[in-house]
């Protein structure tokens, strides 16, 4: 029982026995499927699951909580697909502790109370072993108290603003400093940039990112300054006035943290106003973004973004062996949908890491118990990551590299530079508050 104060009514007791009966039938069916757990003796259910999670002798259930509908479905589709791919691969390898993974998918519907409601359902009613999910900061903030209260585990894939470290969350994307500082250094050292114009959608991630960027530019880069900072409402589609302001300010770097559907309008209108990668390069200017991945470029069209730069930890074009395998597997699994032309972005890759990191952690802990997983997470490694080697820090974020990619006509990124070392995650950066 997750909470000793819970006193179930008579009916829910009946419900529970019905569920148990179903579970028994389910596991019996699993055996009939020809699947027997090869390591059941070594990891008996009573030992690996002491907290009443929905885990049996042959299977373990996990939750998947993303928006399948609503405005965020656009962004979250990739994460859903990548997580399913990882889970399928893990199952094909024999599962976790000899148990196959079953997915319970819930739709957050781009609506934060719905996320909270579904998170409660997954943790209290379905008692899933872990949850892979959420995308926006707002949805994570909405479910976080529930995960902490009910002691669940969330693998969160998106790059985000930091300022958070929970026992109950593993952040597989970058926090703000991992993505921002090195990229600004690169623009300053390699491109000689001195002036920056910061642009963002109006919510916490762009604002925090730009705050960190501003402090870094003003305090840590020599002779550099911020010549403008502008925010537009989410979903805004008209940027002509902003583009004129940028033209007047003539910054060396247009630093863009515009997200979602606004991206398409922003880049199309930039191009229409004569600002392209080539025209900027001619004037020794550049556009650097931390919010545009291959996923977005697919919607924007490569011709509108050619020659702009992005700072991410992963690009689809990374030539390492892990990544080639990952992209091939992704294409194979969704060949009906994408006909071999699947587009994989930074967040999609980070979502793919979630199930694998969970597997590694469970195996290290020898248990599905949330507390043991949380405790075992620091220093868990995953050598098969498409982005290269990753490791969980004790603050539950990942050590990862930062990379600069140049956007190409075909919607892919050419990797130009890569941080030499793994960058330490630092969600509460001293001196950047």
């Amino acid at each position: 029982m997750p909470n000793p104060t819970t006193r179930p009514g008579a009916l829910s007791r009946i419900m529970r026995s019905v569920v148990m009966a179903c579970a028994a039938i389910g596991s019996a069916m699993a055996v009939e499927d020809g699947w027997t757990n090869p390591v059941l003796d070594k990891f008996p259910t009573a030992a690996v699951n002491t907290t009443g999670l929905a885990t049996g002798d042959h299977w373990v259930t996990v939750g998947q909580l993303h928006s399948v509908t609503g405005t965020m479905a656009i962004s979250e589709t990739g994460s859903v697909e990548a997580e399913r791919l990882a889970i399928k691969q893990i199952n094909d390898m024999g599962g976790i502790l000899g148990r196959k993974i079953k997915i319970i998918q819930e739709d957050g519907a781009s609506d934060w109370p719905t996320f909270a409601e579904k998170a409660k359902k997954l943790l209290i009613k379905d008692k899933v072993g872990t949850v892979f999910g959420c995308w926006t900061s707002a949805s994570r903030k909405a479910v976080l108290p529930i995960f902490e209260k009910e002691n669940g585990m969330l693998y969160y894939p998106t790059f985000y603003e930091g300022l958070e470290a929970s026992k109950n969350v593993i952040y597989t994307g970058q926090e703000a400093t991992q993505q921002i500082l090195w990229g600004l250094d690169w623009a300053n050292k390699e491109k000689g940039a001195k002036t920056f114009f910061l642009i963002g959608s109006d919510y916490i991630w762009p604002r925090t990112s730009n705050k960190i960027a501003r402090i870094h530019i003003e305090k840590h880069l020599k002779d550099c300054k911020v010549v403008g900072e502008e925010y537009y409402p989410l979903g805004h589609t008209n940027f002509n006035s902003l583009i004129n302001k940028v033209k007047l300010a003539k910054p060396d770097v247009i630093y863009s943290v515009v997200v979602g559907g606004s991206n398409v309008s922003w880049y199309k209108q930039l191009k229409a106003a004569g600002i392209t990668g080539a025209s900027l390069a001619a004037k020794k200017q550049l556009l650097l973004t931390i919010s545009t991945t291959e996923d977005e470029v697919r919607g924007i069209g490569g011709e509108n973004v050619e020659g702009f730069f992005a700072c991410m930890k992963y690009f689809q074009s990374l030539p390492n062996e892990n990544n080639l395998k990952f992209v091939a597997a992704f294409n194979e699994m969704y060949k009906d949908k994408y006909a071999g032309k699947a587009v994989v972005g930074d967040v999609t890759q980070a979502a793919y890491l979630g199930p694998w990191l969970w597997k590694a952690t469970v195996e290290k802990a020898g248990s599905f118990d949330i507390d043991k997983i949380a405790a075992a997470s620091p220093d868990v490694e995953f050598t098969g990551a498409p982005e290269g080697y990753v490791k969980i820090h004790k603050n539950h974020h990942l050590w990862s590299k930062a990379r600069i990619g140049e956007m190409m006509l075909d919607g892919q990124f050419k990797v130009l530079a890569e941080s030499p070392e793994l960058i330490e995650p630092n969600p509460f950066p001293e001196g950047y508050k």
Partner: protein
Amino acid sequence: MTAKIALALLLAASAGYSWDEIKGVMIMQGFAGLSLFSIFLLMALGLAIIFGQMKVINMAHGEFLTMGAYTTVFLSWLCESYAPGLLAWYFPVAMILAFFVAGSVGFLVEFAIIRHLYKRPLDTLLATWGLSMILQETFRQIAGARETSATMPEWLMGSLQPFEGVDIPINGIFLLGASLVLTVIVVINLYYTRSGLRVRATVMNRDMAGAVGINTRMTDRMTFALGCGIAGVAGAAFTTVGSISPSAGGLYIVDTFMVVVFGGAGSIIGTILAAFGIAQAQSVLEFFLSGVLAKVAVLLAVVFILMIRPQGLVVAKIRK
């Protein structure tokens, strides 16, 4: 306008920009306002007919825009796959096709739903809200949840440079042209043709129009289809500047209603004036304030002006 120029001069002088730069930015800023105007006008024209003339609160208007946009995307994909040579010229065809696709869906919707609700105009809001959910899901099933984009012909991209430092976006000019042409077509259709006469007669006095032999049911259906078709054309035109996703329609719907209501329902001239006023105000405020505050200021200003002129800018004279 003069206040805008004076402010621009003041700002520029204090920041130490050269005269050429100021001039260039002023021209471009003026054009930014104009292209926002054409976007608002395109959005609102269809609704001005449906809501302004027929009093149907069509919450699915945004979805008819999206429908036109998807038609364009589909045609561009078709061209790319099967006839790359036609890619340069598919766009005008796409706009016409968008008109017929959205128009015929509108025709069906009127037949299936709207015609039962003319006596209860506020109920059309609920039914069309349901319709918009169904349409959104249909787009998602057919085209996928991700953002897509139509391949633009070369001649629509880039910018004109009349002189150094001034870039006038070609797609902006195209939008402006499209909105003006469409407005002229709508005005001619409404005010200078027999079918337009029938529409106006039905709006003014349904019973009397019926009595003199106008088929009011068919007129309603055609009017609704026309409004939806125009929304489709607008959607096709938007692919040059904006994003297309199943739920993109929701972004436009409130702005659209604001323009129509602000202009005075039932008046095309009012709609044009309202689109111009709101667009210029927003564009100027965006330049001098921030994007967020501009939006709030414009919303509040519209509310305030509507308080002073409850029937909108231009009041159509209709006997109730």
